[in-house]
């Protein structure tokens, strides 16, 4: 099979969107920025937070460990510049799906950006050792979900192929595209290291067709390496091709089982940025302390990609890009489809932040009324999960939990396609988010009700049993007294004695 190939396979649903990426790709990735302060979140990956190994007042250098991995899944956190630890306190930080609270190490930068003594960690022979190296490097998925890389690669089961995700489908975001253009050799090296770890016979790099320069760079880098496992697949430009499940469908035609993971059908997906970070760690000993962030939108003067040290405050990053324009209407972490709006810019860059989208007024939907659903079914045609959003909507409005489940509410990936195509402009995705919460609450209540009912039944049974026993004893005594008054009295005395004993032991029946 050729190294490069083109796939015409179509996605279930999906829509074409204006990419809005060229605003931020005119110039190369801006490097060498040193922030005045960094806020290093100890939980900037999914799983358990890292455990701080520095104290307030400590001097730290760039690349120095500030927090060791917690219990898996977890990843280490390193200082992203040099300076002094000013505080270790809880703050609000951007996570994969929304803002989270996390303990943070706040470092006052000295501006010198002095590196610690960095040496490559080596690539040990055993799998366990290699996973430990990944955890120590602070590696986590940079596509947005920030699952610790070590734990994602620690899957059991046969891996048919490692899929390196360069299908950056979300509008406005161009950080992966720029990284592929500028650092393709590192991406290829990192990807091969991951494939080694997984024992995967194939390493498929998948890129959307609207990124010709990235494809060219990756192809050149792959040819230079000449590893037979490498493949470079050009896929259709369609949203949401970059979703893990959708990309697998595009590449293989297979579907990840509902509620399952890609490895269930033999695939592991990793973002190109993660592959790059892994290569930097293995080759140069530089842990994950910076990531490419797209700063874009009509709300910022000079949209561009910045190699931002982790912990850089949004405000500093926006200032670096010329500051806000007067038009800025909304600040979004991520792109215009799945990104989440944040209330202020006093937030640090974390491993989850791929884009800061300062949207102009005409780049976001106006807060207008909805029309009633006209059942046009466009949402169903657009849904990449194959759902019927219009039916889900009516089930959600009726609070019909059974129907919501049958219609696949939890297979909704919240990609937002239905919102964009809906002529009635109904905020479907948000309704489904609310419905998911309501469903979880409902499940919890059902469970509680069932357990309560069981407890009530057990108690009633216990009482009935006790009563029955008592009645039986009484009956037996009566019988005994009638037949044989003498031994009957003895039996009564015996019973009274037993009762007294029991009372003294404090074991009174209720």
């Amino acid at each position, binding site marked *: 099979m050729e190294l490069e190939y083109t796939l015409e396979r179509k996605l279930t649903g999906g829509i074409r969107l204006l990419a809005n990426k060229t605003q931020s790709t005119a110039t190369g990735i801006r490097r060498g920025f040193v922030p005045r302060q960094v806020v290093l979140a100890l939980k900037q990956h999914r799983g358990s937070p890292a455990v701080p190994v520095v104290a307030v007042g400590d001097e730290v250098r760039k690349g120095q460990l500030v927090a060791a991995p917690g219990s898996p899944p977890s990843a280490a956190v390193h200082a992203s510049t040099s300076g002094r630890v000013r505080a270790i306190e809880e703050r609000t930080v951007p996570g994969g799906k929304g803002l989270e609270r996390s303990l943070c190490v706040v470092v006052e930068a000295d501006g010198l950006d002095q590196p610690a003594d960095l040496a490559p960690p080596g690539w040990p022979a055993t799998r366990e050792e290699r996973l430990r190296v990944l955890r120590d490097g602070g590696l986590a998925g940079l596509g947005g979900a920030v699952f610790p890389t070590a734990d994602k690669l620690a899957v059991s089961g046969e891996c048919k192929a490692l899929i390196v995700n360069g299908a950056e489908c979300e509008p406005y975001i161009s950080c992966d595209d720029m990284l592929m253009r500028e650092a393709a050799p590192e991406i290829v090296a990192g990807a091969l290291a991951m494939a080694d770890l997984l024992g995967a016979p194939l390493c498929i790099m998948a890129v959307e067709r609207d990124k010709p320069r990235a494809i060219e760079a990756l192809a050149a880098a792959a040819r230079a390496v000449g590893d037979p496992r490498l493949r470079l697949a050009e896929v259709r430009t369609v949203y949401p091709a970059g979703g893990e499940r959708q990309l697998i469908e595009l590449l293989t035609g297979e579907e990840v089982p509902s509620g399952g993971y890609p490895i269930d059908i033999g695939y592991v997906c990793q973002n190109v940025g993660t592959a790059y970070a892994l290569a930097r760690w293995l080759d140069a000993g530089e842990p994950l302390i910076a990531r490419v962030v797209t700063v874009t939108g009509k709300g910022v003067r000079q949209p561009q990609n910045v190699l931002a040290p982790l912990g850089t405050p949004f405000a500093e990053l926006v200032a670096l890009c010329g500051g806000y324009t007067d038009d800025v209407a909304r600040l979004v972490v991520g792109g215009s489809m799945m990104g989440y709006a944040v209330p202020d810019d006093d937030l640090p860059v974390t491993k989850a932040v791929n884009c800061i989208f300062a949207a102009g007024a005409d780049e976001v939907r106006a807060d207008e009324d909805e029309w009633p659903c006209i059942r046009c079914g466009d949402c169903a045609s657009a849904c990449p999960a194959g759902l019927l959003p219009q039916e889900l909507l009516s089930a959600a409005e009726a*609070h019909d939990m059974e129907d919501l489940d049958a219609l696949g509410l939890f297979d909704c990936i919240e990609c937002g396609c239905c919102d964009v195509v809906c002529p009635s402009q109904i905020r479907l995705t948000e309704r489904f988010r609310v419905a998911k919460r309501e469903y979880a609450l409902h499940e919890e*209540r059902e469970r*509680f*009700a*069932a*357990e*309560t*009912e069981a*407890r*009530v039944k*057990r*108690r009633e049974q216990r009482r009935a049993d006790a009563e029955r026993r008592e009645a039986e004893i009484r009956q037996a005594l009566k019988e005994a007294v009638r037949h044989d008054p003498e031994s009957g009295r003895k039996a009564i005395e015996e019973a009274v004695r037993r009762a007294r004993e029991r009372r003294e032991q*404090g074991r*009174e029946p*209720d």
Partner: protein
Amino acid sequence: MLSAAVILGGLAVALAALLVSAERLLPRRGDELTERIERLLPRIQCAQCGYPGCRPYAAAVASGAADINLCPPGGEQTVRRLAELLGREPLPLDTSRGTASLERVAEIDEDACIGCNLCARACPVDAIVGIPQALHGVIRAYCTGCELCLPPCPVDCISMVPRGA
């Protein structure tokens, strides 16, 4: 004209007969309504409605013997859902029998408890544990907030606190 009248009249009679016989012959599904009502209730068997449990109350609502606003733990939301299901007007929640809420749990004041065990006996869900003459405790995860333990306590040492706290 005549034939039309005969045909339509005949149809009407035949269909009416069919409906009547269906009503008579097919099994009654009254239980189904009771079940649907019960599913809308919190089903914590607190008996604050004056019925011994949720199912008896549901049956009473289904037969029209009880109002739909007697369930304090269900709150306004349950009243609304019941009104929707039954096509009745939503009534304001009747709190005269209690103000129990699923959002709260019982808490025993450790200093005041005399270990009389009366609360544990009153608890319908075995959420209060303790041996006589010793401090009693509430298992929060089991407590339904039904407040049935409040009246028996001779020293008024039980209070209702938010579940999350």
